[in-house]
């Protein structure tokens, strides 16, 4: 396939493109639906309500500590489905490649995507490839769309938070954004900060089996925990109070944030879920979470209140209180 660099004709619809699709994509994603090579994947309606979502990935750098744009594109879309209580089934994958992209980078990204899909139990059933001239895109952009089924009785949405509910998170905050930023800016610490990028559908199933009455699930990606909680506070018309000493932040992430003047509350996560649950169900959810590798360091970090609807507050370590506003402006561009 040429000199190991992506060429314009590999997105032209002709022979070169077919070779790329066959040798790389179809063999990596290997499943009966994609192997048919038809214009659309056709499958039986699994019954019940369906959930559908889409997301595009433009992260720079495309390979970062703890993951790459391929695994991220699977995790992000799987997680968006899981946040509505859906069981993710099928994904599509659209690739926009920059002419001159290393074929080895593409191979690595596609292999990692296929691995992430296998681990998450989803199939990539349709795809598309375009190549644009050098400089018209930055290496590689991916779009994934996903479809899943929502089992009977699950009603999880951002508008469901109620006063008295507790706010949980499955682990440390800000890992993904700082891993990407440190890699991009060449900042080095004793140990490299790893992205938390992970598929959360397994964890979510476990939590919902333990306590089906969970009110809200939301993954705090761009804009971080602060922005996501503000969205929930607005949607549900409630106030949310966080406790500073309960926020789980890794020491190296906290140190890197101090250095760069960033607040971990606004830094993106790709393997975290905010859980809002009635106080009566919190114990069951926490013990389910603690049994899963992606939620060992889960924390009850806040509560839903009736005063100040639409706002998020932080009770500080020294006993003061301040607003936690939505992210404004761009804190860290191109982190997903």
């Amino acid at each position: 396939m040429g000199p190991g660099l992506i060429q314009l004709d590999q997105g032209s619809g002709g022979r070169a493109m077919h070779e790329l699709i066959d040798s790389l994509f179809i063999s990596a994603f290997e499943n009966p639906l994609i192997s048919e090579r038809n214009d659309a994947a056709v499958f039986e309606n699994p019954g019940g309500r369906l959930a559908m979502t889409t997301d595009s990935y433009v992260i720079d750098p495309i390979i970062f500590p703890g993951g790459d744009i391929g695994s991220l594109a699977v995790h992000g879309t799987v997680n968006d489905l899981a946040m509505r209580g859906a069981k993710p089934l099928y994904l599509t994958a659209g690739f926009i490649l920059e002419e001159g992209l290393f074929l080895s980078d593409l191979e690595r990204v596609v292999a990692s995507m296929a691995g992430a899909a296998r681990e998450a139990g989803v199939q990539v059933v349709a795809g598309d490839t375009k190549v644009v001239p050098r400089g018209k895109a930055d290496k590689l952009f991916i779009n994934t769309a996903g479809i899943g089924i929502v089992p009977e009785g699950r009603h999880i949405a951002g508008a469901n938070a109620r006063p008295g509910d507790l706010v949980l998170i499955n682990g440390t905050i800000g890992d993904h954004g700082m891993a990407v930023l440190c890699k991009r800016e060449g900042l080095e610490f004793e140990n490299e900060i790893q992205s938390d990028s992970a598929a959360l559908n397994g964890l979510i199933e476990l939590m919902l089996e333990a306590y089906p009455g969970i009110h809200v699930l939301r993954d705090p990606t761009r804009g971080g925990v602060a922005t996501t909680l503000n969205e929930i506070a607005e949607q549900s018309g409630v106030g949310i109070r966080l406790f500073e000493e309960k926020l789980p932040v890794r020491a190296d992430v906290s140190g890197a944030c101090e250095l760069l003047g960033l607040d971990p509350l606004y830094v993106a996560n790709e393997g975290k879920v905010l859980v809002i649950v009635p106080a009566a169900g919190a114990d069951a959810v926490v013990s389910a979470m603690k049994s899963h590798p992606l939620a060992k360091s889960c924390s009850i970090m806040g509560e839903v209140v009736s005063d100040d609807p639409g706002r998020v507050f932080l009770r500080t370590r020294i006993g003061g209180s301040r607003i936690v506003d939505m992210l404004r402006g761009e804190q860290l561009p191109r982190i997903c």
Partner: protein
Amino acid sequence: MKYLDEYRDPQLAGELIQRLRRRTFSKKQIRLMEICGTHTVAIFRSGLKELLPSQIRLISGPGCPVCVTANEDIDRAIWLSSQPGVIIATFGDLARVPGSSSSLHIERSKGADVRIVYATLDALKIARENPDRQVVFLGIGFETTAPTVAAAIQEAARLGVDNFSVFSAHKLLPPAMRALLEARDVNIDGFICPGHVSIVIGAQSYAEVVEKYRIPCVVTGFEPIDILQGVNSLIDQVESGRAEVENQYRRAVTWQGNVAAQKLIDEIFEPEDCTWRGMGVIPKSGLRFRKAWRKFDAAQRFAMPEIKVCEHPGCKCGEVLRGVLQPTECGLFRKVCSPQDPKGPCMVSSEGTCGAFYRYQK
């Protein structure tokens, strides 16, 4: 984390707050100014204000470098960004500050090449990577930033990088403190002196102000315990009628400061009279290139036109910067001026007083 957690200890904080609450005050209101924007943000983020007795009022000063940059300097930076072949390298906050009719952020969306850097040396790197372009670094900042800019200029000279220049709008804090005390509209009983700036200039730099104006000065760190200790020391001084330089931030600041950094500034720059937003011209409060280094001065390299400045008529950033008004007393605050659509610099900068009020204050 070492050197941080012990300065965030809730129990010690509680004791320091109780010490303030238990005491009696000889006057109705004691006004302490935190000069530095980093202090302003730290105070808001820890929710400190509501924990202090009502007699102690913390007011924010002119210590946010982006905020005190004169409007004409913002306009000059925008003009520079429009020159053919020019790459502007700048710290992030400055890009969104509105000038008379635009901002670097807007210019970038129209095609100007404006790049956000974290360090001055990154700007030099951009210059080396783009030998056919002119790279201008916007030198905005206090005594903390100036040595790093000076070092980058020396490095540029050593490497013979002649497509690199600096637009110097650096400012010096002690002259601004003097100007505040000379002005009649500001009442200040004590200064919470900046931590980072003092690392460079040393606690000694406040001796003259203390001597001449009989005003207590305490160099203070940025964690809640630091600030509470600083406030306690200032109140002790005010109540006992003393006026001294004290150094609470001993783990970072010495009496002499960082002499090597001071020499570096002095090698490249010399003080000049300089316009501050809201405060007018303050004698010897800015830094201009010394003759031997002028070839790196963007103001020399580019023939800048006369700039006619126009500010938003209702903007009260000037009064806010002098501590005369609170952001909430400005007619634009929250109504037409917000972090998404800022009318003045104090709303833009992450260290600006208006932005801090908007983001953190109930």
